[in-house]
């Protein structure tokens, strides 16, 4: 059990959980979409780290489980697409609102 507790898998997993908690708090508190996009990205980082901890725990023959790693890479690419899409809409929305004198 002690050996288990000192393994990096738990440390990084716990940090992932902490980042998720912080990201959630920030996401719910911020009203501006830009800050929400930031918070969402940081939250995503926590989720990925959680997956990474599982990959580390499933390590087999000296290397981490490749399946969660592939999932994280996919997740990162989805995140950057989401960020780009959200920013494109938010930016255009702000231009439209300014244009209408808002």
């Amino acid at each position, binding site marked *: 059990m002690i050996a288990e507790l000192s393994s*990096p*898998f738990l*440390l*990084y*997993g*716990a940090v992932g*959980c*902490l*980042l998720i*908690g*912080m*990201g*959630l*708090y*920030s996401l*719910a*508190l*911020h009203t*501006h*979409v*830009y*800050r929400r996009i*930031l918070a969402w990205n*940081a939250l995503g*980082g926590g989720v*990925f*780290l959680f997956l*990474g*901890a*599982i*990959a*580390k725990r499933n*390590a087999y023959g*000296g*290397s*981490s*489980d*490749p*399946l969660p*790693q*592939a*999932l*994280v*890479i*996919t997740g*990162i*690419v*989805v995140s*950057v*697409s*989401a*960020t*780009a*899409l959200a*920013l*494109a809409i*938010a930016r*255009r929305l*702000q*231009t439209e609102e300014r244009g209408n004198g808002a």
Partner: protein
Amino acid sequence: MRDRIEIYDVLLVVTLIGAAWRALFGKDAFSATVFFIVYGLLMAMAWVQLDAIDVALAEACVGAGLTGALLIGAVRQFERAPGARALRRTMGLRASIGALSLLALAGLTASLFEIENRRSPVPPLVERSLGDSGSAHPVTAMLLNFRAFDTWLEIGVLLIASLAAISIHRLYDPSPIEGRASTAPTRPRLQIQSQTQPWIMARTLLPLLILVGGAMLWFGSHAPGGAFQSGALIGAAGILLQIAGGRSALRLSSLRTRSLLSLGFSSFWLMAAGALLAGGRILEYPPASAGAAILALEAAATLSIALTLNVMYACSRPWGPEP
């Protein structure tokens, strides 16, 4: 391969949390963005500690690098908005959201410790199948062979997101001239100013980025690296050019741009249909030609990803002429 926490891990983790804190709760939107990029880079170092070099590269190139570029490109437009600076919620709401977040945190951490140490059947299966997968590197085999369908859909996500960005840009562009409307965000109003810092930087870094990107693609078949990291690096070269104000060949509505954007997605489609015609299943490659199939898919995907990221960056910059 280490199995114990060392002092370095603790330091890294503490800095990571600190950077995340500043990114999430800092007052100023611009410095929050900078801390977010720092957070991304530290995250890449954390991935190294978890023996996930591919993820570390992807996080550094895509997560911190490109997301960072997108955010930095956009932040100037938002930072003066009142809500972008500080939290504007009442104390009661803060407390209740905080309590909920803490609850989620506690539940998650508890599950992390409770997760049974049941052996996943996947890593041994990977080891057994790696020889027939066409790649000596397990993560590449996972992305381009075992779970290639995921990767195809993910490239579809990138494609749809870039089409969306283009469509929003074109539809809402108030410019009355059709021809200009379609190219406005990427065509710089200024010629290259050869003595500016961005240009000097671009000139130095450009060949390097493309070289490293190409190498990463090539080595990806047997070592960490691959289409996404390589595409991100080559894409970064284009973005640097955009920052430097170089005349970009990007025409959002041209057939060439559309073909190149969809090249990765189309290649996967052809590979899926080709496998069917050859009597196999969707995206099933014979072991003998799997290596070539993977390399072809990765090369096509790299080009598409590089262009997609450029389009996304161009569409996320503040509208109007660049200074």
